[in-house]
Structures are given as structure tokens and as C-alpha cells.
């Protein structure tokens, strides 16, 4: 028994060391660190900002209609005289929530399908991969539009739609990884001493596929944020929520572009670009760390 505990402790130590090493390598990478700092900034704005800055989209506003930035309204006002700066602050949370939740759903579906296809193989693999191919072929934004129009537009459904349509890339990647792991000697050994399939997947395959899944989650998050933005811009977003995409839709529909009211849409777009960039930077540096092919070059 004490022997088993010792092994467990050793395993824990190794994991801790690996994790520390990973964190160290990550923060040695300038791009990754920059991305992390940017992301933290957005998290603080999303969760602390609203306590210090008051904004309500339904309140009657004191601002002039479609006025350029002034001292009271540093990002100007929209076509109803509402404060644009406030909408940006309050919309940060929406983007983060949609990004993370959408990514988690898509990663969960993608990993499950990828693992089953890669590890079980045979007929199941064929069927699952054909379906994945079929899904990949469908133009993503069009698919999201159709499904969201059928489900109805509120923020929960938008998250669901993004998750349900965004899993194909993850499924392929995880499958490839599982396929290569399946042939490794230690898996064969586990099988020969009678480990069940579920046990092998859970104990041996999953931990080794996890880095890929983790890196993929980061990328899926930025893609989910962009999807919500496009959807809202096209007028298929949740009209009751404050989001950056909703601001952009307001700007477009109310003719801010043709009168040159740049302040109505430039801040929201810039915020989206910066947030997506923060995830891209983090994902990029993960890739540098986790992809052994890149490390040597």
C-alpha cells in the first residue's frame, strides 16, 4: 500500500514539475505573455468595470444623437444618444462568456467524437469521420445562421449553435492524435494486462491528447467570439444583450457608415480584434511549446 502511495506521489511530483516547466516556458515566450496580459485586462474590464462605470442600454440618455467623442462620452454616442464607451465595457463580458462556453461545448463534442473514432476505429471511425467531413464542407457562417434562425436568437442558443457547429476541426485533430497513440507499446501493454477500453482512453490516451485539446480550446474561443460578432452584425444576435456585435449591428443598420460616424463602430471592432488577438497569441505560443516539430527549428 505504501508502495502505491509512493508511486502516486511520484506521479504527482512529475506532473507538478511538468506543469511548472510549462508555465516557465510559456512566460519565456514574449508573444504568449503579451496575450495573457491582454486577456487578463479584458477579464478585469468585464467583471470589475461595470462596478465603476454605469451604463444601461434601456435608460433614456442625456447625450446628443450620434455625437463624436467628447469629454462626457469619450467614445461618442450612438443614434439614440447612448454612451458607446459603456456599451463596450458591458459587452466585454458577453464576448468572454460566449467565447468560453461556445469553445467548451465544441471542444467537448469534438474530443468525444475524435477519441471514439481514433481509438475504437473500424466502422465507427468511418461513419464519424464521414459525418465530420460533411459538416466541414458546410459553410460555417451559413450553417450557424441557419441553425440559429431555427433555434431562435437568445444568447444561450447562440452559444449552443456555435458549440454545435464548431467541433469538426477538433474532432479531426484529436482523432489523429489518438490514432498515433493507439499503436504505442504502453497502450498495448495496458491492453494485454486486461485494462478496459474506457480505462485506457481515460487513463492513457486522454492525458496525452490533452495538450492538443487545450491548445485547440484557445483557438476555438477566438473563433466563437468572431462567430457571435458576425451573427450579431447580420442582425441574428440576441437583441436584449449588450454585446460588441450588437453595437456593430446598430452602427450598420442605422447608417453610421455612410455618414462617416466612425466612433460608433471603430471602438467595438478594435475591442474584438484585441480580444481575438490575445487568444491567438496565447494559442500560438502553446503551439510553439507543444509542437515538438516546431521546437527544434
Amino acid at each position, binding site marked *: 500500500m505504501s508502495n502505491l502511495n509512493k508511486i502516486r506521489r511520484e506521479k504527482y511530483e512529475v506532473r507538478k514539475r511538468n506543469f511548472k516547466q510549462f508555465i516557465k516556458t510559456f512566460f519565456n515566450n514574449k508573444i504568449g505573455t503579451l496575450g495573457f496580459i491582454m486577456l487578463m485586462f479584458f477579464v478585469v474590464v468585464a467583471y470589475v468595470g461595470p462596478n465603476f462605470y454605469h451604463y444601461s442600454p434601456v435608460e433614456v440618455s442625456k447625450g446628443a444623437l450620434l455625437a463624436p467623442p467628447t469629454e462626457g462620452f469619450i467614445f461618442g454616442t450612438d443614434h439614440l444618444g447612448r454612451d458607446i464607451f459603456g456599451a463596450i465595457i458591458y459587452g466585454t463580458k458577453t464576448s468572454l462568456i460566449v467565447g468560453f462556453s461556445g469553445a467548451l461545448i465544441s471542444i467537448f463534442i469534438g474530443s468525444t467524437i475524435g477519441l471514439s473514432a481514433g481509438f475504437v476505429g473500424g466502422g465507427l471511425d468511418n461513419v464519424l469521420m*464521414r*459525418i465530420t*467531413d*460533411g*459538416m*466541414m*464542407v*458546410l*459553410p*460555417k*457562417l*451559413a*450553417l450557424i*445562421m*441557419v*441553425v440559429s*434562425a*431555427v*433555434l*431562435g436568437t437568445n444568447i444561450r442558443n447562440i452559444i449552443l449553435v456555435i458549440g454545435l457547429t464548431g467541433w469538426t476541426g477538433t474532432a479531426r485533430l484529436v482523432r489523429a492524435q489518438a490514432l498515433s497513440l493507439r499503436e504505442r507499446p504502453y497502450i498495448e501493454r495496458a491492453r494485454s494486462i486486461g485494462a478496459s477500453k474506457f480505462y485506457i482512453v481515460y487513463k492513457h490516451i486522454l492525458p496525452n491528447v490533452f495538450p492538443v485539446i487545450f491548445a485547440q480550446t484557445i483557438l476555438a474561443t*477566438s473563433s466563437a467570439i*468572431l462567430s457571435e*460578432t*458576425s451573427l450579431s*452584425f*447580420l*442582425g*441574428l444576435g440576441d437583441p436584449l444583450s449588450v454585446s460588441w456585435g450588437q453595437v*456593430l449591428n446598430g*452602427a*450598420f443598420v442605422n447608417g453610421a*457608415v*455612410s*455618414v*462617416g460616424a*466612425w466612433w460608433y*463602430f*471603430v471602438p*467595438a*471592432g478594435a475591442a*474584438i*480584434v*484585441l480580444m*481575438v*488577438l490575445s487568444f*491567438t*497569441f496565447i494559442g*500560438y505560443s502553446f503551439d510553439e511549446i507543444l509542437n515538438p*516539430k516546431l521546437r527544434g*527549428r
Partner: protein
Amino acid sequence: MNYKYFMKKVVQSLITIMIVLTLTFILFRVMPGDPTAMFVKSGIDPSVAEKVKEDYGLNLPIYQQYFVYLKNMFRGDFGDSFSFRKPVMKVIGDRLPNTIILALCAQTLAIGFGIIFGMMAAANRGKKIDVGLLGFSLFIYAIPAFWFGMVLIVIFGVKLDLVPLFGMMTPGLRNVTKLVYIKDVAKHLILPVFTLGLAIFGSYVMIMRSSLLDVFTEDYINTARAKGFDRRYIIRKHALPNAMLPMVTVIATSIGFIVSGAIQTETVFTWPGIGTLMLKALVARDYPLLQGSFIITSFAVVTANFLADIVYMYIDPRIKYE
């Protein structure tokens, strides 16, 4: 010509098409809010709705509906559009060339510049130019296409007054010579092409770069270097032809991405293409039109992938003689 490979690809494409059709069928009929609900919302006369239901075989059990649907699809019969009161195929046919012009121009620009800049980045790996190009590509990926279009309109359309703000031609432009017409359309094309082109340009740079870097690690590059060839010569003659192979696949698979970009770009510039048509159909609950344009764009992607596989067969001798 490797017939076995060719047939395999044909069968694969057919299977994919079947799966796309099936997924579309499920999407449009089994999920809540079936087509009849859309009829009611679109305010169509109940008797017409009843007739359409019959035409589509919507009164039949679901598995029979599926076969009726497949039969119609393979005959190229997508039904009639509610809002246009014309066959879906005709409505799409009128709009498709506009999207193709836009996508083709954007694609050509993006591929050309993508290859050049990707090569520059890979050849100077780790240097300032590489980091700069990489950062620029990541930056482009983060920009929503429609937002970039809005910014361009304000700068070049409103402030500088160089190009028209939206549309495909100047309203009321009739009875003019072909040359004037082409000039007018070209002027309207500039911003949308630039918007869509930039949206896809970044991924080409990244893929060209990583593809070249992969090739650089191959033994034959070392051999060439050992022989004392000039660096540029090695890149051009040894690395580039091999690095181009993955690009063919990427160009084909990017068609789906272009459709997404085109929906955004066309909406911003009110370009009368498939993207705006799809959005229109969605808002009007024009169910046959939406389904038709959805399937047509998916077919375009399958076809592009199939063609890429065939092109691959010709340019990669490893497949030809397998």
C-alpha cells in the same frame, strides 16, 4: 492517370454530398420550427401553404419525405422561392455570377500575395521580416471582415470620396456602352475585393510559411545545401515546388471560408450575391431559397475539394505511380 485513386475520390465526394444533403434535410425538417411554421410567419395564404406542403411531400411520413427530397435534389429541383416567386435555381443563377466575380478577384489577390509573403517569411525565419509578417497575419485573422469593410467605406468612400459606398453599379446607369458599364462595376468592386481578399490573405501566408518550413527540414534540402547551391536557388527549385502541394488543398478548402467571408462582405457593401441572398432568405423565412443557396454553396466546396484532389494527382508524382 491513376484510375483507382480517381474512382476513390469520386466515391468519396459522392458520399460527402449524400451526407451534406442528409444533414441539410435534418437541419431543415426535423429540428423545431419546421417549414410550415416558416410559412405561417411569412404570411402566406394557408391554401398555398397546403399546396406547397403537398408539392414537397411534407404530408408524407418522414422517411418518404427524405426520398422525395433526394429525388428533387438530384433533378436540380429546389422548388420555388416564396419571396421572389420564381424557381430557386433561377434566383440563385442570377446572383451567383456576382459572388463568383467577387470571390475570384479576392482569391487571386490573396493567393498571389499570400505565396509571395509566405515565402519571404519562411526564407527569413526568426528575423524581423518574418515576425512582422506573422504578426500581421495573426492580426488579419482577428479582424472581422465586415468591420474592416466598414472602416474602408468610411476612409475611402466617405472621407476621401474615391469609391462608391455600396452596391454593384451606380443606380440608374442604363443604356451605356459595355466599357462604361465594366468601369462602373470595377469601381464598385475595389473595396469588397480588398475586404474579402484581406480576410483570406492571412491564412495563405501562414500556411505557405509553415509548409516551406516543413520542407526545409527534409533531407534533400540538406543534400542540396551540401552540394553548395545558392540559398535562393534551393528555395526556388527544391523547396517551393514541394511546399506548393499543401497549398492546393488549402486553396480548395478555403472556398467554405470564402462563403462565410462573402456573406459578411456582401452584406456590408450590399453586393447582390449569394451571401446577401442567403441573409434575405433567412429574414424572409424563404425556406426553399435558403435551403437551395445553402446546398449550392456546399456543393461548390465539395467540387473544389474534388478538383484539388485531381490536380494533386497530376502535380504529385507519388500519387500518380502509387
